[in-house]
């Protein structure tokens, strides 16, 4: 790759979200901001190899994108918008001489992406596309949606932002907690999309874990005093630290309790612990801090060699009070089974509504494991079969088949 192409790519990666956020906030139109920036990036790839990389690549891209927007507005007959932008460009050109940077509107953009008026399923894809510049096909794969469907959803949701006139603003103090939770949920959903794709041999299957962590870091940088944002980053780092240990050298699945702790990433675990301690200082616990605390309790095995299941079961009890999701309930039942016996764990599973768990693989895998422990082999085989049939990954399927074959 030529230097110019590499410089354009680097500028794109580091500036994309900042420039989209800035332009979208000014023009109240995410789709047009993205199109204009896309054109500017193409122009950069064409001109930079001949004329050399400009001293301020980000400024160059911004100016080129704004020209597109102004031209577009003129064609559309929105002369006033074009005039306003030109006046601002002139003012900023003067500022530029004094070395001012593009102001960062990414936080406002994140809040737009997770706005209550936006369909929950569209929030994470929108964030990944506008802030990180990921293409619809990649997002579609991660969320197991047809690429055409994903493109349509993104187009529709951007039209809604424009038509509904959703504000590009950081919410006020009293609204902050609820609005931030939606942002954090959307980031965590991006992390979750990568969780089962751990094999790593095929980079396309790595999911969006790195992107989610990047977004998590961005939020903690832009809002350093929000304990839940710190909690989410700590949670993701704890999970990510274990990634290398989740498969053995032959590619076989290794469950958490059997993982080799020496393969956990020490720097990531330590960073996660530091973040969680900082979060705890503000004494306002929440869902993500609790989830991170649970992972932190698991991580203690790396230092002490044992897992305190009773402590984990209690933390889950707290988590279920603020976020009684199907996933948390199954994980809580697993902790109860370890701390207080398989019967107790099974009772927690029995208490769940059949509809909620009909196609939830972890429920059936745990059910099989607990029934097997209790010697109820016929029922255990049935549950294991259901778990195997609901598994997406060959390694997980093989692991469960081996466990269930031990009873046949």
């Amino acid at each position, binding site marked *: 790759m030529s230097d110019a192409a590499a410089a354009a790519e680097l500028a794109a990666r580091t500036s994309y979200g900042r420039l989209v956020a800035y332009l979208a906030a000014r023009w109240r139109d995410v789709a047009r901001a993205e199109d204009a920036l896309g054109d500017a990036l193409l122009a950069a790839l064409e001109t930079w190899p001949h004329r050399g990389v400009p001293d301020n690549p980000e400024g160059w891209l911004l100016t080129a994108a704004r020209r597109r927007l102004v031209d577009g507005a003129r064609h559309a007959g929105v002369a006033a918008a074009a005039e306003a932008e030109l006046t601002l460009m002139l003012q900023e050109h003067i500022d530029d001489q004094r070395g001012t940077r593009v102001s960062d509107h990414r936080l406002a953009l994140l809040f737009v992406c997770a706005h209550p008026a936006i369909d929950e399923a569209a929030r994470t894809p929108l964030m990944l596309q506008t802030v990180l510049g990921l293409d619809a096909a990649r997002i579609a794969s991660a969320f197991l949606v047809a690429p055409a469907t994903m493109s349509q959803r993104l187009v529709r949701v951007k039209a809604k932002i424009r038509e509904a006139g959703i504000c590009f603003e950081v919410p006020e103090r009293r609204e902050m907690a609820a609005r931030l939770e939606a942002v954090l949920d959307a980031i965590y959903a991006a992390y979750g999309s990568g969780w089962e794709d751990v094999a790593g041999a095929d980079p396309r299957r790595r999911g969006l874990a790195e992107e989610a962590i990047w977004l998590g870091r961005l939020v903690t940088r832009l809002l350093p005093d929000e304990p839940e944002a710190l909690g989410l980053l700590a949670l993701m780092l704890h999970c990510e630290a274990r990634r290398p240990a989740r498969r053995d050298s032959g590619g076989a699945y290794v469950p958490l309790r059997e993982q080799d702790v020496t393969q956990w990433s020490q720097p990531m675990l330590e960073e996660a612990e530091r973040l969680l301690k900082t979060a705890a200082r503000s004494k306002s616990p929440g869902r993500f801090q609790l989830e991170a605390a649970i992972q932190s309790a698991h991580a203690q095995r790396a230092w002490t060699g044992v897992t305190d299941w009773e402590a984990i079961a209690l933390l889950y009890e707290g988590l279920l009070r603020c976020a009684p999701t199907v996933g948390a309930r199954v994980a809580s039942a697993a902790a109860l089974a370890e701390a207080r016996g398989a019967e107790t764990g099974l009772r927690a599973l029995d208490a769940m509504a059949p509809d909620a768990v009909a196609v939830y693989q972890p429920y059936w895998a745990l059910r099989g494991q607990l029934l097997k422990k209790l010697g109820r082999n016929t029922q255990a085989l049935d549950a294991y079969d259901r778990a195997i*049939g*609901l598994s997406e990954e*060959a390694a997980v399927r093989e692991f469960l088949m081996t466990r269930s074959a031990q009873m046949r």
Partner: protein
Amino acid sequence: MQFTILVYETQSELAARTDPKRKDAYWGAYRAYTKALRDAGVMVGGAGLEPPRTATTVRVPDGKRRVQDGPFADTKEQLGGYYVIDVPDLDKALEWAARCPSASTGATEVRPNMPPPPPGA
């Protein structure tokens, strides 16, 4: 809404059906998958197909019969079976397609079933 999941298998997977070392894992995975579809109440029908070498292809161009041994298309991945499922939308159909054992080794293709043609069409 009905969808068909077409199960495309590699040579190696097709061979696993009768390989003494691998056949238990192969059939176990499909048995479990079929059970999961049934237990979830989405299964409409389906069948496993004998391997491509058992196929016979028939064409009748211009009224002249042409019968050939072997499958219609000779490709790396071959149709090994299909499931017909009834789910609310394509998103749900893709979730089931991803769980099909051939998704991790070969491929699965999802197509919406056409509604029956209106009378008189």
